């Protein structure tokens, strides 16, 4: 049975419609990535799954007793709020210290329990957010641009951690990212969103779909190939063009 099924979902804020007629399901065990340009409704889709935004049409159904772990896009903790990592992981429900240590180990930051949240590096902070999402032993892990603000090696390491978590816990992962080249290769399925579902399928299928190329240009196909290539640990440097593209992509992101 599907963990989440979304039927004919439309979301509007006032007169502005951000999503229309989205239908999709999330099946147990898969890693699904949502890609799409800014303002394409990616975050709204995720927020509708956690119940933070009400659909104006259609509906979002969760499997009964579905446990969701949510890693938000950005979390700002006011400097006036003192908060240790351990205390943060006990919000809003108290859990045993072993559970906290276990979650931190799963997220790849085993020794941070006593640290202040305000003193963590960007990468540590995101992993603590991941640890918090893992506390309730979720069936479904939702990540909203979880690597925003991390450099490329940092976000690649973060997504490898996600794959590891999926292997260890068997949880389903639904994530948003615009780091296509990093994320797509780790995904079983990619959904390309731009106010509606443009196209979906395996990373290769989506990357070569005309709808996707219209949104992101054809270069990303090369980036995907580059990643595959790196991932296979073959060291053939025949991909100068792809490297160039990759750098361009980084620059665009930094400029945003």
């Amino acid at each position, binding site marked *: 049975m599907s963990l989440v099924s979304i039927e004919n979902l439309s979301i509007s804020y006032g007169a502005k419609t951000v999503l229309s007629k989205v239908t999709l399901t999330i099946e147990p065990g898969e890693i699904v990535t949502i890609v799409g340009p800014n303002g394409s409704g990616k975050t709204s889709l995720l*927020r509708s799954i*956690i*119940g*933070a935004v009400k659909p104006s049409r259609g509906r979002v159904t969760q499997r009964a007793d579905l446990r*969701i*772990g*949510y890693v*938000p896009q950005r*979390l*700002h*903790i*006011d400097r*006036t*709020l*003192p*908060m*240790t990592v351990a*205390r*943060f992981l006990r*919000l*809003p*429900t108290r859990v045993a210290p072993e559970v906290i240590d276990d979650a931190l180990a799963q997220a790849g930051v085993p020794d941070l329990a006593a640290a*202040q949240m305000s003193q963590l590096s960007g990468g540590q902070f995101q992993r603590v957010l991941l640890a918090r999402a893992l506390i309730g032993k979720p069936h479904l892990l*939702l990540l909203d641009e979880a690597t925003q603000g991390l450099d490329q090696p940092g976000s690649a390491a973060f997504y490898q951690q996600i794959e590891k978590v999926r292997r260890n816990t068997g949880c389903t992962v639904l994530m948003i990212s615009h780091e296509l080249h990093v994320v797509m290769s780790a995904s079983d399925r990619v959904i390309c969103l731009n106010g509606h579902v443009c196209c979906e399928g395996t990373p290769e299928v989506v990357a070569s779909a005309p709808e996707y190329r219209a949104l992101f240009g054809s270069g990303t196909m090369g980036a995907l190939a580059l990643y595959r290539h790196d991932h296979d640990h073959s060291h053939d440097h025949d991909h100068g063009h792809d490297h160039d593209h990759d750098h361009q992509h980084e620059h665009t992101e930094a400029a945003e």
Partner: protein
Amino acid sequence: MILDDFMMRATLAGIGVALATAPLGCFVVWRRMAYFGDATAHAAILGIALSLALSISVFAGALVIALLMALTVSLLTGRGYAMDTLLGVLAHSALAFGLVAVSFLSGIRIDLMAYLFGDILAVSRVDLAVIWGGAALVVLLIGWRWSALLTATLNDDLAYASGIDPKREQLILTLALAITVAVAIKVVGVLLIAAMLIIPAAAARPFSRTPEGMALVAAGIGSASALIGLRAAYIFDTPAGPSIVCVAALIFAASSILGSIRASLQ
């Protein structure tokens, strides 16, 4: 009986208010609601005028108007005006209307100063019961919702994902704020309530590692300010409410200096 002593009653009233404002004040600081507290307090003066005109309890009048004010602000936020503009309009209008309304009350001589700056030395046994009752209510309310309030303070979506409605938590804070304003009027007055909310909490920050620790330290600092401030007011013959706030401000200054010395040593 020790409650016969006006200084004793004043001290107990001060500590009662400090206990309520400490946990609430932490949320006011964390959520950057300082101006919101101010606005609610200013509106209370209108409540006082109305309750004197209708001869009902000042506490009830202040509570109702403070609550209406806080709810209005919550409802109007995000509908065209920025929060601070909205608060500026509503808070000062309510204060002005309140002051004008008070002037219409012929026959009753009201010492307006007593409501603007508090008259802690005139606290009666009934006042004391109201203050401690209100403070207990605020502490229980915040204690009951503590984890949910903290989660909602961190991030709305994090709260939703945990099955917490951040809007409901905001309402609970609003309610606690209105109760606190109503009970604190007698002690520090309308103009200085925000000081009792913010200063002890801010002074507690450098010495806290957890949110709970900060609320406890804030309660200690607030109580100490009430004790020392009242003693100082007695010795130097200064106004009691402002003296309490002055002591709190001095503790804040000392705490900030200690905090930055410690940070530079690390």
